[in-house]
């Protein structure tokens, strides 16, 4: 027997195209304007945000500082209030919740922070216990729950330590354990890895992914670092000037960025720059005996095809690799290569034709003698 469908709205949404209908968080035209201070103009932090966070997913919001992402994430637990639009959490309109109503809701939403925000006066154990104390959980249950969480984040041996005795990565693990203490359905990550080195960042992201997959906790994170998005996000929204300028599945957005802001973010991790030794020698006008320098983009399936050897076979020229970066987004390979091909203008057409037949995107960077 199928379970009865509880909500009529659910079915309607199921028929709509786009992201999965089971949204745990839904922003509908949400705006946030801060009133003017002194004689200054009111500041619009967010202008008409539409965003859906599917249940069980990891959604990343990326933007530069001042783009409005901090405000956006704080709307989800009522630390900031929207000035227009609606926010639905598990179908409930929370836009006009009272402070007391929000307090109740916040206990079902965990949050971690860039600077960890651990209490220096409390041990690791007592920091993780704090949200449970606040919720009035009995001592014995706190003990069991905190022990379990410290084991989960790999800090069981640090329970009596103080935050000042921990490394940054360990502090964030305490932050994660603390955020999970009340068994929330949603975890909000506010630049959670921005104060960590790359290696620690990877370890924390792996932990977040584990939390998402094993505990089924939906994660909404904000960041200015594209590697964070690439590493763990199922979906990404790019925010700029208080607007979401692009949104979609991470792989789609990253491989086919439509907005210049997205493109510049993506460029930083997957772009291949012309090496310095070559840059000075590249010219736009082809001369006899020149080689053409091409940038070839790989996405998805074709990133695994033996492109270079096929290219050589199809057009019968040697392909020289100058630089390249192949990476993976989710589990799909993605990247670009910079190659030189001994070809003058007429032969180039054949090369592009061959690349097109292999379903690869290529652009001509210039010619080099």
């Amino acid at each position, binding site marked *: 027997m199928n379970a009865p469908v509880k909500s009529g709205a659910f079915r309607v949404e199921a028929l709509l195209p786009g992201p999965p209908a089971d949204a745990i968080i839904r922003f509908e035209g949400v705006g946030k304007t801060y009133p003017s201070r002194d004689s200054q103009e009111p500041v619009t932090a967010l202008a008409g945000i539409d965003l859906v966070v599917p249940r069980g997913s990891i959604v990343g919001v990326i933007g530069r500082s001042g783009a409005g992402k901090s405000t956006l994430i704080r709307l989800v637990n009522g630390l900031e209030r929207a000035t227009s639009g609606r926010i639905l959490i598990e179908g409930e309109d929370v836009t006009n919740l009272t402070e007391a109503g929000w307090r109740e809701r916040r206990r079902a939403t965990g949050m971690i922070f860039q*600077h960890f925000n651990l209490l220096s006066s409390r041990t690791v154990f007592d920091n993780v216990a704090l949200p449970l104390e606040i919720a009035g959980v009995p001592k014995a249950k706190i003990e069991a729950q905190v022990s379990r969480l410290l084991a989960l984040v790999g800090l069981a041996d640090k329970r009596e330590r103080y935050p000042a005795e921990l490394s940054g990565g360990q502090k964030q693990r305490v932050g994660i354990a603390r955020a999970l203490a009340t068994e929330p359905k949603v975890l909000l990550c506010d630049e959670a890895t921005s104060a960590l080195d790359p290696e620690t960042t990877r370890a924390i992201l792996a932990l977040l992914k584990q939390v998402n997959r094993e505990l089924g906790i939906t994660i909404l994170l904000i960041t200015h670092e594209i590697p964070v998005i690439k590493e763990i996000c199922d979906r990404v929204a790019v925010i700029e000037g208080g607007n979401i300028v692009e949104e979609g599945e991470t792989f789609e957005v990253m491989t086919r960025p439509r907005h210049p802001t997205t493109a510049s973010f993506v460029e930083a991790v997957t772009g291949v720059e012309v090496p310095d030794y070559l840059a000075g020698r590249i010219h736009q006008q082809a001369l006899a005996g020149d080689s053409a320098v091409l940038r070839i983009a790989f996405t998805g399936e074709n990133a695994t095809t033996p492109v270079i050897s096929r290219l050589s076979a199809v057009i019968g020229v040697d392909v020289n690799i100058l630089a390249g970066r192949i990476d993976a987004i989710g589990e799909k390979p993605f990247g670009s290569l910079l190659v030189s091909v001994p070809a003058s203008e007429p032969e180039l057409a054949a090369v592009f034709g061959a690349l097109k037949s292999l379903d690869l995107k290529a652009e001509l960077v210039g010619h080099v003698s």
Partner: protein
Amino acid sequence: MSPELIRLIVEATGDTLLMVAIAAGLGTALGLPLGVFLATSKKGELFAAPAVNAVLGALVNATRSTPFIILVVAIIPFTRLIAGTSIGTFAATVPLTVAATPFIARLIEGAIREVDQGLVEAARSMGATPLQIVRKVLVPEALPAIVLGLTLALVSLLGFSAMVGAVGGGGLGDLGIRYGYQRFMPDVMAIVVAVLIVLVQTVQSVGDRLSRRLNKRLRHA
């Protein structure tokens, strides 16, 4: 030195300690909530009440800007109302408390304001009520600074207490003025000064040590 003088010095030390202890105790009991309120009631803060904050702040400033000896005399009617009399060691604890309370309140306000706002935000994100934030976050996190502030207040109170001889309060200051100065007994003056120095040193080093023990930020891995 005569046994009579020794008795006087011991008695005066006891009076000073008693006055300072009562004033510091009451001053903390009143100053702590006042300080917490001052630190959390400006616009947009936990217990936002900007008008009340402004009035209390002005009151605190007024008390603090009145020289202690003037305050003692100026509030004699109030002292009489509370203590039944305006003369003597017990009565002298009233102006001492009145002076200590706003002083302690400002010190506690300063200590609380030093607490990282990120911690308040974290506590809010857990669903903490404003009172829980005060009890579980602000006061424990500010405690090392509060202890240092109270130490400073105790030292100041030792100084203030020397002035209450003017209204018949006892204590070391009174002894020093009446015997050491007015009766030309420099040895008494020397002893009074020495006892005060020992008291201040003791209070300061105990306070410093306690604050350091409470401060978990200084530990390193």
